[in-house]
């Protein structure tokens, strides 16, 4: 992108975006719905703390599908990808940073006070 005014979107359309066929979208929709069903079913099984991990993994797969196909992410350049990723990186930093705190806090207890003598 160093020469901003040059036509580096090379497709024949003036706007230069990629045209995705409807059938691709349909496949993705079906995949998304199936994944939703899987999430709901997986939540019924009690896997302890793995439930949330599983749910998040599936959600992330769904999110990736949406970004890559519905949002044309697959056809975008590096600069756009940088800005697509930044918020996710920051979210990770935020949660990571906050979790260096709460789980590691000490929990001092106040001293038990003897019953005051009459």
């Amino acid at each position: 992108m160093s020469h901003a005014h040059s036509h580096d979107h090379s497709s024949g359309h003036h706007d230069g975006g990629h045209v995705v066929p409807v059938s691709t979208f349909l496949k993705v929709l079906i995949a998304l719905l199936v994944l939703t069903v899987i999430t709901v079913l997986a939540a019924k099984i009690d896997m302890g703390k793995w439930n949330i991990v599983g749910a998040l993994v599936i959600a992330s797969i769904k999110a990736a599908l949406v970004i890559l196909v519905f949002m044309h992410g697959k056809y975008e350049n590096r600069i756009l990808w940088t800005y697509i990723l930044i918020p996710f990186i920051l979210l990770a930093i935020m949660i990571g940073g906050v979790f260096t705190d709460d789980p590691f806090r000490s929990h001092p207890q106040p001293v038990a006070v003897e019953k005051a003598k009459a």
Partner: protein
Amino acid sequence: MSAHATTAHNEELNYLNWKTGLWSWLSSTDHKRICFLYLFTILIFFFAGGAAALLMRLELASAGPTIPGIVKDPHTYNVLFTLHGVFMIFLFVVPGIPATLGNFLIPLMIGAKDVAFPRLNLFSYYLYVIGATIGAISLLHPVDTGWTFYAPYSTTTGTSVSLMVFAAFVLGFSSILTGLNFIVTIHQLRAPGMTWMRLPVFIWASYATAIIQTVATPVVGMTLLLIIAERVFGAGIFDPAKGGDPVLMEHLFWFYSHPVVYIMVLPAFGVVGEIIPVFSRKPLFGYKMVVLSSMAIAAVGFIVWAHHMFVAGISDFSAIFFSLVTFLVAIPTAIKVFNWVSTMYKGSISFSTPMLYAMAFVFLFMIAGTTGIYLAMLGVDVYYHDTYFVVAHFHYTIQGGAVIGLIAALHYWFPKMSGKMYSETASKFAFALVFIGFNLTFIPQFVLGMEGMPRRYYDYPSQYQNLHTISTVGAFMNGFGYTFALANLLWTALFGKVKAPRNPYNSVGLEWQTASPPIHENFPETPVVDKDPYHYGTPAHV
């Protein structure tokens, strides 16, 4: 000066006079005019915040109630420092350099006709005005939380916190849209030949700033909305009485509010990087490292926020982690300082007012930065946290950094912006007042901090009195200096007689190659760039 080939009529037409009338200004999408809209509004708040500061300083001039007629009780004092902080941060310095000089200079320096979204630009300005208005309405029952809005005080106090934080939220969106606009502008609208490595360092600094503005501000926006949610229907996220965690609020607040300090200071770094080469007639030393360090500061700035919370009750592990990473910011900053100073080596140095401000900047920022190092040291910060040492530190960074940078820039680009030349004598006199007054105000505050004087105190034990008195005297001198410096510029812009030439400093920057003041769409025809920035000096001497 052979560029005078254009007709006399054409020469007279520039962005200032090609349309007239107040409405043509208020509805203009020209980035240069929007710069002025911002400039006037933010300066109103600078002086309002400054007036609050002077009242605070008067109250603190002696122990016990000092001006009971005006600051009638501690509550009034608390309101004053809150308004001072909120005005100065959210209404003055955050929109400060980016929205004024950023607006004026980015298109000029990259050879574009305007920013990418001119109407969005004007919309950002009006968002700012709306935010400021909401903030002004909240003055009916002014806030007393400090600019940090810590819960649960902010979620329980009776003052109009909801209005004020909503104002800050709106201001935040103004800032986001400005940042977004600049990022896109820098990516898309560079003139042919203006490659990334030919961008002036001010552009790089503005780019780094814009990224922070765009991606950090939403975080504080949402945090402030949560404070409203807490107040209105008890969301139970920050208020410990409802099972919330007040320290979480601090985390989220500083996640924005640390990066925000680099929103303030990075553009000022950029300004200094522009001024020193011109007045030394030398290329900027280590251009690549200066550029890289701007980006590094922006990036590292996102992972150090909890250094404001070392004694907030965070885990020891967290404190140690955040202390370590905080030191990382010092390194790119150091690189910048060393490169600026080296630029002067074997230069041909002249001392116009902008250069004086730039050199003052280096001195003041050394004090500012090194005291930041004290605060990043765990054991030392435990002592210094929430004392006047912190107050002095951040006034050195913000005032010695951002405000001095802004004033330096206003002088440096003044000929371009207004088409006039200001009086060197008057501006140097103002400079002396600012410089002496500023140090007189805040050096005593370092000492107060060393002696343990806590901040946000309406009253204090009498052992601190002498230093406070000196600081008050300095504050008035400082305030007078600012007033004088800015009044000088305003007066010259309106009534000055001396017309500025196209390029008074003989600078190689693109913005100096067009008329002073520039025409409506900046350049008669799109410029083509074929040289690196700052190609001063004679190559043969290498």
